[in-house]
């Protein structure tokens, strides 16, 4: 199979990306575009990151999640809690208060999960169940097994809780020392990067935990269950002032340092695209996609379907969290209405439009979406909000009915494309009757 000589795909893509970055940066620096539109363009990049995350979960892995906005919210509020501490008045007492707790909590949860895995709780349960079912009637066996599991789980959770407290003590000391030696000018950017990363990891961790029980549900049940999660998250946000005063519940959180820049947002987008593309164009990516194609066949091919679903869901959550964190620091305030159910449909509409299973399509659709919304806001200011949500569903319906594959289907551009296998002469063994009749 011969192929013409062609430039490695990443070169045109890199050039294009560099041009986009420079164009926007120049336009902003020289006031070709207003600050308002500068923010809109950043928002477009942020939306793209979130949408890519959902595309990984739904487009590539086939799991219909309606809970994406919940992870977006976690990233947004979580990162805001971290950076607000570094402001003039730390809300938690000192500037590393939130960060140390957040880090400790995440490590604690990972540790607890690891404990469950190390102690082989799953196997323990199975052995207990089979040992007991020989002696007792099924419902009795169920009762004892459930209670025993709960007791064991409670012990491990308690261990995890105390471990978290210990981890916090350590994290606090480390962070304190670290920020003490850090030069003054670097504190803000470093805290921002840490906040964004933690926004992502928090969301990813919650996604993993939420996915543990829910991912085994079938297609539409999973959608409804994740929708339930998103609504629960929304309710929690509206009442968040009961737990953390500075989140101010339904009144909205303010005073978040506006640290997102075009460079930051675009850089984050580039990194996310790289991660996603490398993941998809590898054996792991193929395994993730095979789950979408045919779960049963994937199992028969030796693929741990549950693991692949968890992988995709967690990564998708991570991207959503990062996007949320960048969003929080774009405008400097957060309001639960940005994370409501209908807002949660933005990423879904985008990926369906752009083409499920197409990263390029998602990015294009995200940019188009962000610009279109703002454009509409300018064109019909009166009743904009009213009509906006009437047009959304009509567009969605039209796409579903007329072109369900979306704009790009599964096509990609440039470096994102499926790499062709290297040119080689494949040795064809001669074998009697191996070619057979082809219809």
């Amino acid at each position, binding site marked *: 199979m011969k192929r013409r000589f062609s430039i490695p795909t990443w070169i045109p893509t890199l050039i294009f990306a560099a041009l986009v970055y420079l164009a926007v940066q120049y336009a902003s620096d020289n006031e070709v575009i207003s600050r308002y539109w500068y923010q809109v363009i950043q928002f477009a990049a942020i939306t793209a990151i979130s949408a890519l995350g959902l595309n990984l979960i739904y487009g590539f892995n086939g799991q*219909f999640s309606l809970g994406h906005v919940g992870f977006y919210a976690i990233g947004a509020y979580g990162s805001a809690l971290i950076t607000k501490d570094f402001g003039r008045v730390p809300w938690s007492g000192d500037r590393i208060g939130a960060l140390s707790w957040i880090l400790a909590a995440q490590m604690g949860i990972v540790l607890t999960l690891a404990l469950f895995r190390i102690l082989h709780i799953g196997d323990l349960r199975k052995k207990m169940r089979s040992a*007991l079912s020989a*002696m*007792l009637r099924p419902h*009795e066996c169920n*009762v*004892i097994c459930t*209670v025993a599991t709960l007791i064991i789980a409670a012990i491990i959770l308690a261990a995890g809780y105390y471990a978290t407290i210990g981890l916090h003590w350590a994290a606090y000391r480390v962070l304190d020392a670290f920020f003490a030696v850090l030069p003054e000018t670097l504190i803000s950017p470093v805290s921002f990067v840490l906040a964004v990363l933690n926004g992502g990891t928090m969301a990813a961790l919650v996604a993993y935990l939420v996915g543990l*029980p*829910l991912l085994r*549900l079938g*297609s*539409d*049940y999973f*959608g*409804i*269950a994740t929708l*339930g*999660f998103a*609504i*629960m998250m929304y*309710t*929690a946000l*509206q*009442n968040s002032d*009961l737990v953390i005063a500075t989140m101010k519940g339904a009144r909205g959180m303010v005073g978040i340092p506006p640290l997102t820049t075009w460079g930051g947002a675009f850089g984050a987008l580039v990194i996310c695209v790289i991660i996603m593309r490398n993941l998809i164009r590898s054996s792991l990516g193929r395994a993730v996609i095979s789950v979408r194609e045919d779960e*049963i066949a994937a199992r028969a091919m030796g693929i741990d379907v549950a693991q692949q679903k968890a992988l995709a869901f967690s990564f998708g959550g991570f991207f959503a969290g990062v996007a949320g964190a960048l969003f929080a620091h774009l405008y400097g305030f957060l309001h639960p209405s940005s994370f409501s*159910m*209908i807002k949660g*449909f933005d990423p*879904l509409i985008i990926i*369906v439009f752009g083409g499920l299973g197409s990263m390029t399509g998602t990015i294009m659709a995200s940019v188009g979406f962000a610009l279109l919304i703002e454009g509409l806001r300018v064109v019909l200011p009166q*009743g904009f909000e*009213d*009509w906006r*949500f*009437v047009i*959304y*569903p*009509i567009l*969605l*319906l039209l796409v*579903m*009915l007329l072109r*369900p594959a979306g704009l790009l289907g599964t096509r990609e551009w440039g470096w994102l494309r499926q790499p062709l296998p290297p040119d080689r002469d494949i040795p064809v063994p001669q074998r009697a009757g191996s070619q057979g009749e082809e219809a």
Partner: protein
Amino acid sequence: MNNAITRTTLRGIVWAIYAALGVGIVWGVVQLVQMNGPVYFVQSVIDGLRLGFVYALIALGYTMVYGIVRLINFAHGDVFMVGAFTSFYAISQYGWGFVPAIVLAMVVCLVLNVVIERVAYKPLRNAPRIAALITAIGVSFFLEYFTALKWVFSADYITYRRPFDVVVWNIKGVLITNITIIIVGVTTFLLLLLTFIINKTKVGKAMRATANDKPASRLMGINVDAIISLTFAIGAALAGAGGVLYAIAFPQIWTFMGIMPGLKAFVAAVLGGIGNILGAFVGSLLMGTVDVMVVSFVPGGSRFRDLFAFLILIIVFLVKPTGIFGETQIEKV
């Protein structure tokens, strides 16, 4: 280790656990009753059951449609809303009485749902289920936001005018209104009518057959498309009636009023076993009771109502996704 002794010990433990659970439940109920007095408790239960009856009317639509086309009709809650608004206009602007208004609401919702089915769902009948679900969500949003436009229903909260005066009876401190009687009465009547149609008429038999096996039903000469539309129609009529009753009970309507009752009715249907009519009824009563009890007994409960509903949903999905009356389905490989 002696098997017999271990067995008896384990059995003993199981009974101890059951006893502890029983005691716990009894203690819990006693606490609830004591918290604000028995009158308050009974009042909550009655209000909860009343709400459950209204949810039942919505839940039946969900369960019937799911049983026949395996679709979660997200827009169902919004049909409920249209019913409420239709009766509002009939009563307030045209002075209609209660019965004509509710019948009108049922008819309007029926027609609306059939139109939705033909336009949005039928073309996707052979598409993957998710496509239909996304479309259903789209229809739901469209109904909500379109009716919220100023020249349709507007986005305001509108005070509903009841078509009759409220009469309250005080039975040993528990307040029962004629609204409760009417809700229970109308719902029971409609439910009995539905059961009669499904079990005793030819059409009902056709519906059951179609829900069971579409291709075979087609081969038997059943007009499957018509039966599906009929199912949507009946479900919508019930929801429309539910909307009127809900508005009478809670006389404030707005175009987004259908979201939460719709979702809760859906949870109720899942709880009872989606596709199962008795399950939808039982699930709704449970759901309604829990909903009202949360508000009555949990401090600040009205902020967390919805959370509880979804907690129930998640628990059902984890423990027994097929619900109380549902049957486990094995996928043929």
